[in-house]
Every structure is written in structure tokens, then in C-alpha cells.
């Protein structure tokens, strides 16, 4: 093993050696990597690292969470809003197993994390020692890479490798498990050298010009081309390159929920959201376009609906950094391997400038139908109970699209993603692939640490909020400023919607009761307000946004409202229903 590490990491320039513990070497490394904040929770097996951290308080901010799952989601929120690597500390055994949900979420949503777990002394490995679990094997399927350190001399090189792997190529979570003896062990430390090459790892496939040329030829010949964009645009920091491509090509573009904000919501070629609860036009037109250009997206089943009826008429051009995504779900006619930051400008240079006015007008027809039959009623209802849609709509009016919107999972998530106005990239933080209820609150905390200059609004349901509400304690203690909106429909709404539509209204265990959220917030010294009537909404939203510090706003919304449009499971995207 030591040989491959030596071979894969460029040798450090000779530096003056000093004797430090493995823990100090780790913290020095984190600081050299530019880590500003760590989300963590101490415990027996990670005590030497926390002891060293005591002396690093001035240089490394540590946020004490209330549950290790919260640490991973906070680190995800941090990474998603800032584009930097999120860092997590947890102890062995239960501390480490509590990371699994967050790791799985970060893995499926390609979020760069470096998680450090303490482990029992190396001589106790495999003895069922107190708080020993096989963390490496538990986390193997949910990490991009993981490694167990039993010798402190490995720490600087392994940490460098971890950061490089987490953030390069298609990003993802990495876990380093460090035995307690390695944390204590003194080493001759020669400084920290970041890693930029591992011989067995190629973060970016080489660009093949013939594919770029083939893609350009297809695009130039297309009558009804259609762009689908995903988080790859954000992860590659290719927003400018993407916008240039969209504008020169004149092609309508629609987004997956993790791609939201790559171009502003009100960009004239932004046609809206794809998938199960996406917009009407983008779903229908997927099955009438002639060339489908997928950029940094992975054709999730929530986007494609029934696969054998998905865009079968279209030639597919797929741009992706991960070769394993090509042909995984949808066969690509032209696979454009590579980082879209590099491939998009090459493609833009070869395409002809177009407007596609007639084709765009076709989208406008669908937009008008959706607007009249659905959106209007949801965003600006004149009577009846409050709707989730109007809460987001009024929020848009007040934030003018400048806020970071963090959502949890369920109906409110779909509503938030559909209607939130986003002027900027990295403004929509949500659990896309894994659909992790409880993600919202801790992710919002992390998002604010990632972008302290921006307003962060968490949109959370009454169910999801109760999954991680202990993180109110983290807010209380850290003093972080997040605006929390609980859209309370007194149901586990998304499951209830399915039970209504597909299970003959057999409401099986979706009726959920809640505590008094405002009193709960109060007990954490967090200001709050509950809204039950339409006329209270705007003043309450204004109060929340103007309040200095965190605020919990509970909005009672209509109990049995369904999220539409909807592509029912097993249906084709063009069978999307408006009601």
C-alpha cells in the first residue's frame, strides 16, 4: 500500500521536519486545504483530534451539531452553496454509522465532502471493541473513496488524496477512518503537499474532437433541438460557458432540480423544470424534439418517466464528465466525454447562431396552458386556504430571487423548486437523488456558513422538520442566521397524494401531528411566527426576512392539495397530467 501512495502523490519538496501528533498533522492539512469550518460531534475514539482542535480554535471554526447526520447535511449545504469541500468530524461506531444517510445523499448528488471518523485503537480492530464498527465496509457503497489510517505517517498524504478525490472530476464524499493510536502517534512532519495526480484516477476523460464535431453537426441540422441541463453545469463552474452556448444556439433549455439556477429563472430560453413534477412544456416537448442535448445530467427515473417511451424520436447528445453515465439509462448517439467547462466552448464555437423562434413559440403555448389551468390558481388564489405555491410566490416578491432556497423533501420541495425565483447559481440546495427527509434544516445551516453574505431560506414540511429538528440547537449555539419556513399541511403530503391518486384514498399512516413549532423555536431562543390567514402572509414573510438572526415561520397550508403537473409512475413524460 505505502508504495502506491508514494507513487501516486507527487513527492513533497524537502521541508524542515517537526515532531507533531497525527491529529495536529490532520488539522494543519485541513487548514492548508483552505478549510474554514468543520461540522462535527466528539466522542471517545476521536478525542485526540478534538484535543488538538482546542489549540486550533482561532484557525478552524468547529460547529457542534446535535446529531452526526446533521453534520453531513450541513457540510453538504456548505459545499452546495459555496462550491468548496464540506468537512465533517465524527467518532467511531454510532457516530460513524450516523453519517451514512448524509454520505449516501452526497454520493448520489455528487457533493464533495471529506469526513473524518475516529476509530478504536488499531490493536482492537476486529475484536468487537467498545464503539467499534467496520466503518470502511459500511461506507464503501456510499463513498467515492474511503481509507483507514493506522499509521500517522500516512495522514498528510491521505488527506491530500481525499481532498483531491472529493472535489475533482465528478465530485463526491470521501471518508477517512483514523484509529485512535494513529491520532496520538508522533510523526516527523514535513508539511502538507496538496495532491493533483493519482495514476489510477482520471477525473476528466479526454475530449474527443470528433464527438464535438458530430454533436455540432446534429445541432446545426436540428429543427427542434432541446437542451436538458443538470448539476454538472454548476459542479463544473460552467455557468458562463453554458449560457453562451444556450444564447448562441437559441435552443430552449430545461433543468433537473439540481441544475436549477445554472441560468437565471427568468432567462428567456429557460423553459422550466423537467420530470415528474416539472413543467408541462419541457416534459411534452421531450417527446417531440429532434435532438436532445443533455448536459451534466444523468437521466434519473424521476426525470425520464417510462424509459422505453422517452425521447425515442430524438437523437441524443450527452455531455458528461463521468463515462459511466453515458448510455447508462438513455443511449447516446453522440457521447461528448469531458468536463462541460471545456467541452461547451468547443461546441459553441462550432454551432451556428440561431433563434428557433417557432420552436420556442411552441413551448410558449404549453406554458400558457399550464399558467392558466394551474399556476395562476396556485400562486395567486383569491379564496380558500393558503397554498404552498403562494408562499413561495410571495417570498419571491420579497427576495427578488436573491436568496438561497434550501428545501427538504416532499410536496413543498417540488413546489419550492418549481416556483422559486433564482437569479444566481448555487442558490437551490435540495436532496435530489436520495430524497432525504430531514435534509433541509441542517443543510440550511451549512449553506449559510458557505455563503454568509446571502439570505438563506429553508423551506421544510411538517414531517421533514421533525426528522432533524434537534439542529435548532446548532442554530441556537452557533448563532447562524437562517430563515426557516415550515409549510404545515398536517400530512406527510407527498405520500398522501399518491395514496389519494393511486390507492383509493386509503390514507395509511400519513396523518402526522406536530408540536407547537413556535414554542419549540422559542425554547431554543429562536424567534417565530405562525400564519394561518392570507392577509398575515406578506407581513410575516417581511418580518422573517428583516429579522436579525434566525426565524421560524410556520405557515398553515391547505391540507389536501396535490402537486401538479405530474407524470405518474410508469407513464411517459408526454402523458403528464395537469390535474
Amino acid at each position, binding site marked *: *500500500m505505502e*508504495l*502506491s501512495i508514494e*507513487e*501516486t502523490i507527487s513527492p513533497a519538496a524537502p521541508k524542515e521536519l517537526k515532531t507533531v501528533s497525527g491529529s495536529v498533522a490532520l488539522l494543519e492539512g485541513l487548514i492548508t486545504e483552505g478549510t474554514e469550518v468543520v461540522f462535527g460531534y466528539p466522542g471517545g475514539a476521536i478525542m485526540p483530534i478534538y484535543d488538538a482542535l482546542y489549540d486550533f480554535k482561532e484557525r478552524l471554526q468547529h460547529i457542534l451539531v446535535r446529531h452526526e447526520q446533521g453534520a453531513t447535511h450541513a457540510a453538504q449545504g456548505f459545499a452546495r452553496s459555496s462550491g468548496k469541500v464540506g468537512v465533517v468530524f465524527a467518532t467511531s461506531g454510532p457516530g460513524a454509522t450516523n453519517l451514512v444517510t448524509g454520505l449516501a445523499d452526497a454520493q448520489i448528488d455528487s457533493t464533495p465532502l471529506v469526513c473524518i471518523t475516529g476509530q478504536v485503537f488499531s490493536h482492537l480492530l476486529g475484536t468487537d471493541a467498545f464503539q467499534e464498527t467496520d466503518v*470502511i*465496509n459500511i461506507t*464503501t*457503497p456510499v463513498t*467515492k*473513496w*474511503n*481509507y*483507514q489510517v493506522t499509521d500517522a505517517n500516512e495522514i498528510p498524504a491521505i488527506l491530500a488524496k481525499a481532498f483531491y*478525490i472529493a472535489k475533482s472530476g465528478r465530485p463526491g464524499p470521501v471518508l477517512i477512518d483514523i484509529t485512535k493510536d494513529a491520532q496520538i502517534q508522533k510523526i516527523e512532519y514535513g508539511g502538507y503537499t496538496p495532491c*493533483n*495526480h*493519482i*495514476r*489510477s*484516477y*482520471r477525473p476528466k*476523460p*479526454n475530449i*474527443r474532437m470528433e464527438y464535438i464535431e458530430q454533436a455540432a453537426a446534429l445541432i446545426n441540422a436540428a429543427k427542434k433541438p432541446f437542451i436538458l441541463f443538470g448539476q454538472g453545469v454548476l459542479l463544473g463552474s460552467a455557468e458562463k460557458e453554458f449560457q453562451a452556448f444556450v444564447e448562441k444556439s437559441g435552443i430552449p433549455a430545461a433543468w433537473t432540480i439540481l441544475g436549477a439556477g445554472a441560468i437565471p429563472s427568468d432567462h428567456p430560453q429557460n423553459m422550466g423544470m423537467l420530470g415528474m413534477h416539472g413543467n408541462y412544456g419541457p416534459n411534452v416537448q421531450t417527446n417531440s424534439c429532434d435532438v436532445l442535448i443533455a448536459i451534466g445530467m444523468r437521466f434519473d427515473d424521476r426525470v425520464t418517466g417510462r424509459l422505453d417511451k422517452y425521447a425515442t424520436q430524438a437523437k441524443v447528445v450527452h455531455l458528461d464528465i*463521468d*463515462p*459511466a453515465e453515458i*448510455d*447508462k439509462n438513455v443511449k447516446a448517439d453522440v457521447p461528448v*466525454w469531458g468536463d462541460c467547462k471545456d467541452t461547451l466552448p468547443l461546441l459553441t464555437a462550432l454551432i451556428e447562431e440561431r433563434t428557433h423562434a417557432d420552436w420556442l413559440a411552441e413551448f410558449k403555448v404549453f406554458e400558457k396552458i399550464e399558467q392558466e389551468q394551474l399556476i395562476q390558481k396556485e400562486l395567486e388564489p383569491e379564496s380558500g386556504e393558503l397554498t404552498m405555491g403562494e408562499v413561495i410566490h410571495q417570498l419571491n416578491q420579497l427576495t427578488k430571487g436573491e436568496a438561497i432556497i434550501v428545501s427538504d423533501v416532499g410536496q413543498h420541495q417540488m413546489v419550492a423548486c418549481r416556483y422559486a425565483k433564482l437569479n444566481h447559481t448555487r442558490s437551490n440546495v435540495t436532496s435530489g437523488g436520495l430524497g432525504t427527509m430531514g435534509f433541509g434544516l441542517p443543510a440550511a445551516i451549512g449553506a449559510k456558513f458557505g455563503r454568509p453574505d446571502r439570505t438563506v431560506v429553508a423551506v421544510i414540511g411538517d414531517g421533514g422538520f421533525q426528522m432533524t429538528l434537534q439542529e435548532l440547537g446548532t442554530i441556537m449555539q452557533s448563532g447562524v442566521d437562517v430563515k426557516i419556513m415550515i409549510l404545515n399541511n398536517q400530512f406527510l403530503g407527498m405520500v398522501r397524494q399518491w395514496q389519494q391518486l393511486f390507492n383509493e384514498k386509503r390514507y395509511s399512516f400519513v396523518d402526522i401531528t406536530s408540536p407547537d413549532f413556535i414554542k419549540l423555536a422559542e425554547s431554543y431562543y429562536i424567534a417565530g411566527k405562525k400564519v394561518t390567514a392570507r392577509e398575515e402572509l406578506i407581513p410575516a414573510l417581511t418580518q422573517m426576512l428583516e429579522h436579525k438572526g434566525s426565524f421560524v415561520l410556520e405557515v398553515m397550508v391547505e391540507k389536501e392539495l396535490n402537486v401538479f403537473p405530474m407524470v405518474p409512475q410508469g407513464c411517459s413524460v408526454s402523458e403528464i397530467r395537469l390535474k
Partner: protein
Amino acid sequence: MDMKDAEFIDKKEEFTISVYTENQVGLLNRIAIIFSRRKINIESLNVSPSEIQHIHRFNIVVNETPDTVRKVARQIEKQIEVLKVYFNTNDDIIWQEMALYKVPTDVIAEKVYVERLLRENGARAVVIRKDYTVFETTGHREETDKLIEVLQPYGLIEFVRSARVAIIKNSQGFNEKLREFEREEPGQDVVELEHSDTKKDVFTM
């Protein structure tokens, strides 16, 4: 074989997947779970050092459709410590399995034709003791299986077979490739997952 045509034939067949990796604890598990997650049974698995120091070679045999094998191969190649993955049908490779047979020595001594049978089947005595003799043979599955049938009536005591080892017919080996990997910016040919195309005698996608 031509992969484009093969994709339309949703037929399972035997594939040998050859994986070049760093020598890393835990990598076997990372690779194995790619199969188990998709409920694919591994028919045979061999892991051993390759011709290059510190680089190991996995030979994995599965019975799957070409499309599935290609997807799985790409997932394997995505693992950090994996350098390169090839997948081949039985036509593309030369392969062998080794088998050992333990039989009572007195039977061999008494019945001369048993030893003749063994020799006819290409078996070679590895150990001869007073109580038992161990024969070794190498070949395809059917060949090693055949010898079990032959020996069963004469008191076959114990039998063991190795995993498959395979050589890719038109492979140029890995030494050249490794040098490419070690460069900071590898050349064109190391980038995408390759399927060895016997018709064109070149590596293509």
C-alpha cells in the same frame, strides 16, 4: 464481436472481465459490491499480482448480457484505484483453469488403466504418497469436469479447481499503458473504457 449489434441481442453469455488495479486493502469489496448490488453472480474470481510490480489483476467471470457487462465494467473503472478494465467474450481470450485430484495410491497401483486414463486426459502426478496421489490438470471447465467423472468410480478423495485465468488474444499488455497513466495528462488511448475488438484489431469503445 461488434458491440453495436450485440446490444440488440438481449442474450446472456460468458464474459471475462480483466481489471488492473493498485494493490489496496478493501478494493476487492468495492469491486464485488458492484456485482452484488445488481444481483449478478460472480462465476469465477481470480486476483493476483500482474506482470507489473504493485499492480494486481482481477479476472472476473460472469454470465450476463453485453449491455450489462459494459455498464458494470464502467462502474468498476470508475473506482479510484482501478487503472483499467477490459471485458471479453470467450472468443476473445485464451483461458485455463487448474484442477487437483486426490485419489488412493493403491487404486492407481492396482489398476494400470486408471493411470493411463489420467495421462490420456493430460493429468500429471504432483505428489505420490503411500496412501494417496495428487494429480493436476489444466484446461477448460469441460475438460476438468470430465476427469472428475472418470475418477469418481475409483474413489476420488478430494477435488479442487482454481478460478479462471485468461489472456486477451489481441492485448498489447499493460506496460505501455501504465506509462501513460503515470503522466499527468494521459494520452488519448487510456481514457475510455475499452472493449477489445478482434475484427478491427484495435481498441474501440
